[in-house]
Structures are given as structure tokens and as C-alpha cells.
């Protein structure tokens, strides 16, 4: 294993390196600066932009990093990972902006140093989740992400809710990653390998005990499922989302979910799919029936998410459940196990990033004014804060999946994929679910517009920057609703992950 090969590998993980360096810088800056450091946010944004630049560089790139003798690659770099990394970067930037403009975080501003350190840690972890191709590396990165997010969830030290959230997150997360590790160990025992690429042939021709293998796979899925909060591994989600500071919630609901999905997809595609037929349908080997499994999980997830959301009286909690439901839709798209399905997943994620961040952003802005996330405190917001009201309406409509918003495109591709694979039952279940989802989304609208504003309802005063931030999410949501070529092009180009 020669040095230039090593350098070549380093060259492939430029973004990760950048992230790490900035992590270090942040620590140092925090060390040598006074308590409240207002430079840090900008600095971190800068760091993320640089990272973003290097991520974009990786589009169209194909490479295996740290390939050891028997072609075990630790990291694989391709446009697929680039896509998800850019999602992570984008959401991190919005995460910072949210933090800066959220009142509830103000008490923590004397600890910004740790905050951004943790964030960079998370980003690093997620990057490796996205492009890692060895179970151990994946496990470690999952843990890295988890550890940082435990702390972040409890970052508002003095708030009971926050710290409770962190405890629950911790116990739950630790358990599931433990299960995952145990699963990995079994796989290791069965195949003598933990490398995704290596597993593939081994699994194809495996005469290994399929029951053990399945058990192991379920355990591993427990680890991933908890990251993407798929039923039945979702229980932490509502509590943590509600308890954690809103920016963190938003971040978890988008970034770590994205990483989780990337990991899941890579796992399935790389280690279980031998080849695909002419229509782009993946031929998965029968040793583990991913399709049925994912269908069951996705149906359970979307249904539970939507129906449990019906009753929520706290907007954040409601959005938590809705994000579970959306995970369900994504899983449904994945369950098709075809390139069309994969495109649908990517498109949906791009859209989901915009609308979900937007929704949380508005929740933050409104809380800044009203100091509450309870549904009842939203009465008449539509009239006292028309701009926020209207934008929220747009995001909610998009989340429901109605034209002319980007959400519709996501749904459209999802259903195209399903119908294309003749999975009509799943399609109809998903459709009915989206009808149910209308109930609770529209409940918010009803409170904002149909209820009469409580007197002394605060006026809406947004700084120019806040407007810009909001617009930067509203405009694309509407734009992609009527002209969606860019997203789809991007998604299509990004599904070529390494191998097959």
C-alpha cells in the first residue's frame, strides 16, 4: 500500500478533512476568545461553504478511498454521496442561521464554541455515514453523530424538557446502536468480513444460516431505523423533537435523517443487489426479502406518523410526527427497489429539505414573538403576522403534497415509482395517508386564519435578513412546484452510486 495511493485516498476525502480542520479551528477560536463570540457562526458558515465547494467537486466523481489489499474500501466517493453531503451542508447552514435568530438559544450563546464544535462533529459523522462502505466505519460514524446530537438535544441545560430529551435520546440511541453493533458482529461471524462490497458476493453465494443472517440484518436495521425514525424504532422522535431546541430538532429531522437514508440505501444497494433488469428494477438476492420488509415498515411508519399527528396540540410535536410520516413515504419509494424509486427518494429528499426546514424556521420565528409552540397560541397569526402566515401555509401545503408546490413533485415521483412497479396497494395507502395528513396540517391553517386573533397578539417585525432567509426557502418551494427539471436532473445524475 504505497504512499501516493494513500495521498489519493486523502484527496478523495477532502470535504471530511475540511470539516475536521474547521472543527479544530472552532475549538481554538473558542479557546482564545472571550465568552460570547459572535464571529463563530459566520466562521462556521464559511467553513461549511468551503466544505460545500469540495462536496460539489465530488459530483460525477467515482472513487474508493483506503482500499486495502483485498479491495476493502473504507470510503466510497460518488455523486450519490455528494448529493446527500450537499443536503447535509445546506441544512447545517440553515441550522446555524436558525440558531442565530432563535430567542430560546440566546441563553446558550456563551457556549457557542462547544455548540459549533459539536455541529462540525455531527457533520463529520454524517459525511462518513453517507460515504462509508465498511460496517465498522459506519457504526463508528453513527455513534459520532449520535453522541454529538445527544448533547445538542440537551444543549439548553436549564430547560427540563431539553435535558429530558437528551436522556431519552441517549438511552434509546445507545441501545439501538448497541443492537446494531451486535448485528454487525454476527455478520462478521458469518462472512468473516464487514465490508459492504465484500459482503455482496459472499451473501449471494452464502450457505450461511439465513435465520441468523436475517436476525443480524434486523439488528443492524434497528440502528439505522432509529436514525431515520422508522416505526417501530421511532419512539424517541416525538419526545426528543419536542424537547430539544427547535433548531436542533430541525437539524435532526433533516440532516441526520438524510445520513441515515444514505447509509440504508448504500447498504442495500451495495451488499444485496447483484444487478438490475432492463427497466432499472434491482434484482435483490432472496436471502433477505428487502422489498416486503421495507413495504411493511413504510406502511407502518407513514400510517402511524400521520394518525398520531392528528391529535397533537404542540406544533413541534406535530411536525415531529409528520416527519415520521415523511420517512414512511421515503421508505415506500425505496421499497420499489428500482432506479426510478431511488430517483423518487432523492427528489423527495431535496424537496423535504426545503419544506421541513421552512416549517421549523417559521415555528422559531413565531416562537420568538409569542414564546409558545402550542397550537392555540397560533390563533389569528395569519392576520397579525400575514407574511409568516402565508409562508407557513405554503410550506404546509407543500408538506401535504398539493400543487403548485415542490411537495407535489416529491409525491408525484413517489407515486410514479410505485405505479411503475405496479405496487398499487402501497400507492393507495400512501395516497389515503396524504389525505389524512391534510387534517392536521390544515388544523394549523385553521388556527392561523379561521380563529380570530387574540388581542395583544404581537405584530410581525422581521429583519431584512430574516426575510431573505425565509424567501430563500419559500421561493424554491413554489418555483420547483411549477418547474422541477433542475431537482430531477440532479437526482437522476446522483443515483449512480458506486458499483452496478
Amino acid at each position, binding site marked *: 500500500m504505497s504512499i501516493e495511493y494513500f495521498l489519493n485516498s486523502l484527496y478523495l476525502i477532502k470535504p471530511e478533512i475540511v470539516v475536521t480542520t474547521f472543527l479544530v479551528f472552532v475549538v481554538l477560536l473558542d479557546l482564545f476568545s472571550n465568552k460570547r463570540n459572535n464571529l463563530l457562526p459566520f466562521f462556521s458558515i464559511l467553513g461549511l461553504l468551503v466544505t460545500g465547494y469540495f462536496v460539489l467537486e465530488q459530483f460525477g466523481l467515482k472513487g474508493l478511498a483506503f482500499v486495502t489489499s483485498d479491495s476493502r474500501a473504507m470510503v466510497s466517493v460518488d455523486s450519490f454521496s455528494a448529493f446527500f453531503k450537499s443536503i447535509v451542508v445546506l441544512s447545517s447552514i440553515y441550522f446555524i442561521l436558525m440558531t442565530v435568530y432563535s430567542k430560546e438559544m440566546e441563553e446558550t450563546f456563551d457556549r457557542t464554541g462547544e455548540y459549533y464544535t459539536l455541529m462540525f462533529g455531527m457533520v463529520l459523522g454524517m459525511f462518513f455515514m453517507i460515504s462509508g462502505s465498511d460496517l465498522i466505519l459506519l457504526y463508528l460514524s453513527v455513534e459520532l453523530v449520535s453522541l454529538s446530537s445527544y448533547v445538542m438535544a440537551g444543549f439548553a441545560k436549564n430547560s427540563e424538557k431539553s435535558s429530558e430529551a437528551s436522556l431519552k435520546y441517549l438511552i434509546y440511541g445507545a441501545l439501538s446502536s448497541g443492537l446494531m453493533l451486535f448485528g454487525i458482529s454476527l455478520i462478521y461471524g458469518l462472512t468473516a468480513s464487514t465490508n459492504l462490497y465484500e459482503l455482496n458476493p459472499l451473501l449471494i453465494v452464502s450457505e450461511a444460516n439465513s435465520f441468523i443472517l436475517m436476525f443480524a440484518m434486523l439488528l443492524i436495521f434497528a440502528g439505522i431505523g432509529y436514525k431515520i425514525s422508522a416505526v417501530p424504532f421511532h419512539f424517541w422522535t416525538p419526545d426528543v423533537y419536542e424537547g430539544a431546541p427547535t433548531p436542533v430538532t430541525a437539524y435532526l429531522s433533516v440532516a441526520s435523517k438524510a445520513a441515515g437514508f444514505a447509509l440504508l440505501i448504500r447498504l442495500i444497494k451495495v451488499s444485496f443487489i447483484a444487478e438490475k433488469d432492463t427497466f432499472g428494477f434491482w434484482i435483490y438476492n432472496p436471502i433477505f426479502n428487502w422489498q416486503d420488509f421495507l413495504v411493511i415498515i413504510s406502511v407502518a411508519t407513514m400510517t402511524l406518523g400521520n394518525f398520531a399527528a392528528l391529535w397533537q396540540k404542540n406544533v413541534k410535536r406535530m411536525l415531529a410526527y409528520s416527519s415520521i410520516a415523511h420517512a414512511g413515504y421515503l421508505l415506500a419509494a425505496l421499497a420499489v427497489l428500482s432506479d426510478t424509486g431511488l430517483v423518487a427518494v432523492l427528489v423527495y429528499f431535496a424537496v423535504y429539505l426545503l419544506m421541513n426546514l421552512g416549517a421549523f424556521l417559521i415555528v422559531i420565528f413565531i416562537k420568538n414573538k409569542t414564546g409558545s409552540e402550542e397550537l392555540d397560541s397560533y390563533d389569528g397569526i395569519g392576520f397579525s403576522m400575514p407574511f409568516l402566515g402565508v409562508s407557513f401555509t405554503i410550506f404546509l401545503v407543500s408538506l401535504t403534497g398539493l400543487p*403548485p408546490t415542490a411537495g407535489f413533485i416529491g409525491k408525484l415521483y413517489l407515486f410514479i415509482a410505485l405505479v411503475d412497479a405496479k405496487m398499487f396497494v402501497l*400507492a393507495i395507502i400512501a*395516497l389515503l395517508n396524504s389525505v389524512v395528513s391534510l387534517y392536521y396540517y390544515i388544523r394549523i391553517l385553521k388556527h392561523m386564519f379561521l380563529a380570530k386573533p387574540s388581542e395583544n397578539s404581537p405584530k410581525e417585525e422581521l429583519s431584512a435578513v430574516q426575510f431573505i432567509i425565509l424567501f430563500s426557502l419559500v421561493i424554491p418551494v413554489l418555483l420547483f412546484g411549477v418547474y422541477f427539471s433542475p431537482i430531477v436532473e440532479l437526482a437522476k445524475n446522483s443515483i449512480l452510486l458506486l458499483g452496478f
Partner: protein
Amino acid sequence: MQQVPLLSLITFLPIIGMILILFLPKNNEKVIKSLTLAVTGIQVLLGIVIWRFYDYSLGGIYNQASFQFVEKFRWIEISSVSWLGTIKIDYFLGIDGISAPLILLTAVITFIATLASWNIKTSIKGYFALFLLLDTGMMGVFVALDFFLFYIFWEIMLLPMYFLIGIWGGPRKEYAAIKFFIYTLLGSVFILLAMIGLYLSATETLADGSKVFTFNMLQLMNAENYTADGILSPLNPSNLRLWAFLALFVGFAIKIPMFPFHTWLPDAHVEAPTAISVILAGVLLKMGTYGILRINYPMFPEITNQLVWWIALFGMINIIYGALCALAQKDFKKLIAYSSVSHMGFVMLGMASLNTAGVSGAVLQMFNHGTITAMLFIIVGIIYDRAHTRGLDDFGGLANQMPVYTGFVTIAFFAAIGLPGLSGFISETFVFLGAFHVESIRLITVISTLGILLGAGYMLWTLQRIFLGQLNPKWSALEDLTAREYAMLIPLTIIVIALGVYPSLMLDLMNSSVNTMVNFLLKSPETFSGLPF
């Protein structure tokens, strides 16, 4: 004339108006109102222009060449990754004899409705912004020839409608609004499913000879375009096509509304403000039947031919059932709402006949019902504004108090019960003649004629209860029509009488298209054959 993008203009003008309104300051209501009025007025003018330049000889339906004012250019084009197939969606507008009358209708009704919303008090700005958005949605549905575009316009209407009912409506507005929203959404998801199914089973041949999946309605009407292994291809032995037809049909039937999906209508109408009731009954209901004519019929001709009996049957149920329900109502507005259910039944009956008389009758009935019901709801609104009650038994003897008003009411009512010389008669007669001509649904037609009788029953009874008899002293303060109300009623009255005396004004407009449709439905079943029936 073809150079000017008339259809885009008439469709998106309201959006422009809406944006202008959004930038106007809250307080100057006059400007907002007059702006809206101007926009809708221009729409009417455009409508007239379109009518003026419309070529009666062209058929339309399935042949792009014979559509008019066509605007078509590539809207979405995704062709990067070859093995996934390219996606091409057109921005494709055009009208034929089926949609042209409905465009005129929409223009007129929206204009009238703007006048009707003059007495909106709270948050004018939002109201008219939403109103204009709704307007665009409606126009768009009638001009779109690309299924994807059609669906977007179809969905755009939901939210404005929800708010317009929900914010400016009556006491139980929230209930009515959500009910409307959920129902229509439930319908449209089925449409979406069927749409995707169609998209995935038919291809369009491009200039370069390559084939791509298509949302183009006209291409979807051509049996050759269906790929052999397509989900909904006629060659597909499964009867998925039947299910797709039903999905679409239910989706549209909810809008019509067809029994038993009609229950949202009375609530929505009773709670909605006058102008919105006018729009709802005047235009929105027509979208259901229009959708069936535009999509179900030509895309599933063989199934259509199988199911006409059922369509006719449900038409009959609507007619009789709606009339009987209306007979028992105590609330003026609810009564009118149920009468709409009954009258839309005639449309379905006419469509079921699959011959020119019936279908023309149906389309004409759409137009006439639009104008007449608009009149009726305006009438209800007028009395409600003055008396703040709609109870039929609270009134009596208004004829002396408000003679002119009574005059208009009489015209509207008699138009509604199909008195000759007024527009309602012609369409109903055509529907009956056409439907009776078909062996299989003759009995249904004969039973449906009872609708005429019951119609006379409830309308005249209402007339008597509200206007005849001794004047209830409580109402001795009500004054007769204002100028604005004249402005609303007179144009409609003129239309109603004009079409009653000389229906060719509309019939000629739609005739060739209807014939094309009928011929298409006659011939195409063979080409679409190969189904397990």
C-alpha cells in the same frame, strides 16, 4: 388572431391582478375592489373576443389540428439519464366546442361574482387575492390540454376555496370548509393515481421519432400510443382500465356532485358567502362533468360505452333525489343547493346518451345551470343581506314590497323549472330527446321526466311562500334592488332569455365538437378493444 396568446392571457390575468393586490396597502379597499372588477371585466372582453374569432367548423376533442387558440411549448424536459427515459411535459392550452362555452361561463360568472362580493367587509385584500387565484384555477382547468397542467389547475382551486368559505363564511364555516376540502382532495388523489397510470402506459412519438411517456390528453386518447405492456394499455388483459375509469369517475363525480357524494354541497353552499356560492354552483360543479367529458369519455371509450347505463342511472337518482330533498327544505339556500344536485343530474343523463342531442344538451345544460343557479344564489344573497334570514317560512308577500326583485325571481325560477322561452327548457329538452333516443336508458329517461314535475313543485311552492300572500309586517322596511344588484341580475337575465329564444348561439358553438366526440365514441371502442368484458 392566433398569434396573441389569448388563453394564457385570460388564464393568468387574475394571477397578475392578485400580485398587484398583494402589493397594494391594506386600507384602500376601493382600489382593490375596482382592480378585481377590472381584471374580471377584461376577462369577459377576452371571452367575447375568443367567441368572436372562434371557428365553428372545427371539431377538436382528439385532434390537435382542430383545436383553437392552441398554445403549446415544452415546459418540462428531463432527458439527462437515458436509461430512465426522458420526461417531457408541455404547456399545452387550447379550446374546442366543449370548453369554449365553459370559458365564457367562467368569465361571466366571475365578473358577476366580483360584483356580488362588493359587500365583503373583513380583510378585503385577502379575499380578493384568493378570489383571483381561484379564478385562474377555474379558467386553467377549462383551457388545459395537458393532464399534468389540468391537475395542477384542478388542485390550485382547493386552497382558495377552503379559505373563502372558511374565513368569510357563515356560522358553521369551518365545518363546511374542511368538508369541502377533504372531499375534493379525496377525489383528486384518485384522479392523480389514474393520471400516473395513464402517463406510464402511453407514449408520444417526438419529432426525432423517439417515444416518451406523455401527459398530453390528445395523445392519451389515441389507442395506438399505448405501449403493449403499459399498465392501462387496452392490450393489458387485466381490467385495470375499468378501475382507472372508476377512479377518475369518482374523482369527478365528487365535484359534480353525484349521489351519494353530494353531501358536501348543501353545507358548503349554506355557509359560503353569496359570491362564493355563485362561483361554486356556477362554475365548480361543471368541472366534474367537464372532466368526465374531456377525460373519461375519450380516453376510455370502450368502458364508457359499457357504463352509460350506470351514468344515466345515477343521473336519474340525482334528478329525482335532489328534487325531493329540495321539496322538504326549510332553508332557501339549501333548497337551491339541492336543486343544483337535481339539475346536474340532467347533465349526467344527457352525457349518458352518447348522441349529439344528449351531449349538446348536457353541455348546454352546464352553461344554463351555471347562469340560472348564479341568478338564484344572488337572489338568495339579496334577501339574506336585507332580512338576515333564509327561512322560507319567515317570509311572505314580498311581491308587493319588492316588485322588481320579485320579477327577477320569477324569471329565474321559471328558467330553473324549464319554462320554454328561457334557457333551461332547451337544454333539458335536448337532454331528454337525446337520452330517450337510446334503447337501454329509455325507461330511466321516462322516470327522470318526473324531475320536471317536482321542479315545478318546489320552485312554485317557494315562490308562494316567500313572495305571495300577505306581507309579513316585519319586512315592511325591505327596499327593492340597488344599482349593483341590477348590474348582477340583468346580464344573467339577458343571457337566460337570449339562449331560451335562440339557443343556436351556444349550440352552433359546440355542435361540431360534440359530433366529433360522438363519432369518436362510436368508432374508437374497436381500437380500444381487447378488454375482458
